[in-house]
């Protein structure tokens, strides 16, 4: 039974990465109608930027948490301005193919220069060590990841669903022409939104750098799971993707305990089941 509690907690930790990443995807899909396949590559870039900041600039983890998402976010905005904006109004497939291509290019470039085994990034001193909870030894860093990503997730949800800026955003996706008529610069808002989504991916990248290796393919595996999370939660639903992210982390953790061999397929089995029963996802609206 103690082992079960431990697995639940570990699942929650993984869930926080899923939640952060699927949140970014949901924001981008909800506001831009783009299925952002480059999300995994941008997550990887976040980790690499943190690595470079530390090793080339001597800038520590805490600053990297702030700076890396901004740098990668700007990179994302350049992508949006130069490429993605021309796909607005076209079929989803075009955006998907373009971002998928971008992901392959970005990963390829990093792999060419850094190989596949990855680079070390150590846990900041303050967060080293762990505490004994009785049923498990919880590394402080993992606890930090859960708390921090919960705050970021709720903050983002609040920003989009409860503030005036968020209201503009949601209005702009419903009827861009009308919102423009009110004197709001919709294209700029779209660009900033993409930057925000990308920044969230980069933030998840920085958070995961001390846990996993900083390596070019780190986003490749996680992105497929995250897509499943978004599909299960309902495309474009902010709260849906947050809750599903955490929930799936827990379910995956339990699978690792009861039947480890299936741990990387259980999410997809769930996805199939959800699509069969409720094709719009658990919280999704009908299109």
């Amino acid at each position, binding site marked *: 039974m*103690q*082992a079960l509690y*431990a*697995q639940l907690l*570990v*699942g929650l*930790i*993984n869930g926080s990465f899923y939640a952060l990443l699927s949140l970014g995807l949901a924001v981008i899909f909800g506001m831009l109608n783009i299925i952002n396949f480059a999300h995994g590559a941008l997550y990887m870039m976040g980790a690499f930027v943190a690595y470079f900041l530390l090793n080339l600039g001597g800038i520590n983890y805490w600053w990297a948490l702030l700076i890396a998402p901004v740098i990668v976010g700007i990179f994302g905005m350049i992508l949006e301005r130069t490429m993605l904006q021309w796909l607005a109004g076209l079929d989803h497939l075009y955006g998907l193919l373009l971002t998928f291509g971008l992901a392959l290019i970005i990963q390829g470039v990093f*792999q*060419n*220069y*850094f*190989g*596949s*085994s*990855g*680079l*070390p990034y*150590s*846990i900041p001193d303050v967060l080293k*060590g*762990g505490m004994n909870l009785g049923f*498990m*030894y919880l*590394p402080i*860093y*993992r606890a930090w990841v859960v708390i921090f990503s919960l705050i970021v997730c709720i903050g983002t949800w609040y920003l989009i669903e409860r503030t005036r800026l968020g209201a503009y955003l949601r209005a702009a996706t419903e009827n861009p022409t009308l919102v423009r008529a009110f004197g709001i610069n919709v294209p700029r808002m779209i660009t900033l939104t993409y930057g925000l989504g990308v920044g969230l991916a980069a933030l998840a990248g920085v958070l995961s750098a001390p*846990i*996993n*290796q900083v*390596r070019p*393919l*780190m986003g490749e*595996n*996680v992105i497929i799971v995250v897509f499943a999370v978004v599909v299960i939660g309902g495309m474009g639903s902010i709260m849906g993707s947050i809750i599903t992210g955490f929930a799936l982390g827990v379910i995956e*953790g339990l699978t*690792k*305990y009861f039947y*480890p*061999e299936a*741990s*990387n397929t259980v999410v997809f089995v769930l996805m199939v089941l959800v699509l069969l029963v409720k094709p719009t996802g658990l919280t999704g609206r009908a299109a």
Partner: protein
Amino acid sequence: MKHTISALLLGTALTLASASLASADDKNVKIGALSDQSGLYADLGGPGSTLAAQMAIEDSGLKAKGWTIDLISGDHQNKPDIGTTIARQWFDVDKVDVVVDVPNSGVALAVNNVVKEKNGVYINSGAATSDLTNAQCSPNTVHWTYDTYMLAHTTGQALVKAGGDTWFFLTADYAFGAALERDTTAVITANGGKVVGGVKHPLNTSDFSSFLLQAQSSKAKIIGLANAGGDTTNSIKQAAEFGIVKGGQKLAALLLFLTDVKAIGLETAQGLNFTETFYWDMNDQTRAFSKRFSEKMKNGAMPTMVQAGVYSGLLHYFKALDALGSNPHDGVKVVAKMKSIPTDDPLFGKGEVQANGRVTHNAYLFEVKKPSESKGPWDFYKLVGTVSGDQAFTPLAQSTCPLLKK
């Protein structure tokens, strides 16, 4: 009419004569380096293995003797079906004579069958499974560098003898992990130890915390990592995070490569004990080779033992071809010649190719240095012991290879 027939006969005779002449001193060789070029094993094999093959061609001296040697490379993406498709195409269309490297035991065993069917030569350096020279051995296969038996009987044995008598395995869920766990378990039980549990994790897992917690609660003295590449580095890194080593349990990295140590960083990797058969900083010859190698690598990496094995395996293959005088394009014949010549090369030293295809050479027990002991970017290992080839690898009497029973 008569003239036409005699002309025809003459023509046929000439063609036959020239054809037989061509095969008598056919000095063309084509090498295929098959590896994981972009996935989790790409740094320990991959482009570096192709480079090692290229260097072997240059150093063989065969070109000066009139040989033409071509090299092509392929990416098996860690998928047996892709690996066998490439191998088939190489033999059928590209007329490849020898396939080298092939990390990933699953792919390696599949390709083993293709090479046998096509009567090519297979010099495997990248795969670990000892099945290649046991149940699945082939007269076309030579297995260089290492295997699961060797890893179990060096690192595994040393740890059990030092008191680590209860084990929990983290095993990669495919042919390699299964073979390594099986061979290590045999050593543990033979030395009076016990395996108390284990988990099989999918290949290329990024989060090991669930598995590590299970290992922790098993209270086993040793947590055996029967995985490789990125899976091993993530296991070690996260084990440190969960305080496993501090809690008194010991990690056994049964298979660890130079590039893995680089990826983990000395801070976390220090003190790990493991076995390799090649390290760049062993002697003047290995240093000279490694320096040349590293200068040609894009990221300046030193060679791993797998890449060194590709180089040495090919050098030995070229020796056999040179002794034969021409390329018979007959895998069984060339491999038989390779078995009849003792191996001796600058990287692995002296040894032999046994009748089952296993190459024996020294194996070395290493310990990862402390950050304070390391003098350069690739200065990672301390030598703590040497095991001779006949002790490290499967004794022929124990090999289950059907070739030996003839």
